[in-house]
């Protein structure tokens, strides 16, 4: 089943490998990102970075959306990783059976971003995508690792 849909702009990295994969007992990672899926260098670097023993695929948004029912039918826990909230929005718009939850992990500070939490900064289009997800009934929450406090979008949206 799809255990977690997570937005993290560094995708597969130290925190993901050392914490998220073991905390959620992930057996299968699907990186859902049109740009990474179409860039052979990025794609291969992330495939190389994935821990051995965890099946890892890098798919476009339409490919991932088409696979959602099959991923939910898997016995092992599946992690869907996206780089941007906009990608999560596209995925929810095209895969209606997807669990209505989005975990936002670390998002880097970039020009014109606003901090949602200490580790997560969002651009205006990213904030807009989060708002739309929330309006669709998706629970959007911020959490880096499960031992840290979770912040609900609903509790901070008034600041945006």
């Amino acid at each position, binding site marked *: 089943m799809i255990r977690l849909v997570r937005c993290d702009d560094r995708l597969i*990295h130290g925190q993901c490998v050392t914490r998220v994969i073991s905390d959620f007992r992930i057996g299968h990672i699907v990186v859902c990102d049109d740009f990474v899926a179409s860039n052979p260098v990025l794609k291969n670097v992330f495939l*190389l*970075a994935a821990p051995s023993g965890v099946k890892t695929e890098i798919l476009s948004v339409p490919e991932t959306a088409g696979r959602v029912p099959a991923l939910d039918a898997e016995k092992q826990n599946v992690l869907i990783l996206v780089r941007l909230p906009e990608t999560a929005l596209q995925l929810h718009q095209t895969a209606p059976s997807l669990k209505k939850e989005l975990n936002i992990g670390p998002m880097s500070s970039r020009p014109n971003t606003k901090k949602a939490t200490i580790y997560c900064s969002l651009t205006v289009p990213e904030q807009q995508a989060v708002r739309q997800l929330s309006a669709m009934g998706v629970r959007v929450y911020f959490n880096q690792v499960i031992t840290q406090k979770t912040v609900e979008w609903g509790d901070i949206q008034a600041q945006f």
Partner: protein
Amino acid sequence: MTAIVVCSHAELAQGFLDAVDMIAGGQEQLFAVGLQPGEGLQDLTRRIADCIDRSGAEKALVFADLFGASPANAAAMSLFSVQAETVLVTGVNLAAVLEAALSRDGGESLEAFAARICGAGRENLRVVTKQTIQNAGGAAL
């Protein structure tokens, strides 16, 4: 001279340089790039590549602190954009950085150099128990 770039989370890379300086004195063409809180993969990749390009070296050895983590991922991506012939060694330790800084340019290929440095790093990871120490001297302590 082969440039050496150490890439890490936070200030660990600079710490390696400080430690090398303490042990072996200041070294040329030895650089540190640390991922800062809130920094993205793209910026980090650019900083690593800029560091290699600015060195002007023909060859570069990049160390990263953890295989699969962002500094290693960014360093891996930079291999495709830099001018110098460059290889990456992950899981850096001080023995590896010291060996690399003090034994570069021995005429071997960059890949052979990197493999030798990996060996030096691995060899320094050891378990030391009271028994190990007793066995070293032969006599009971």
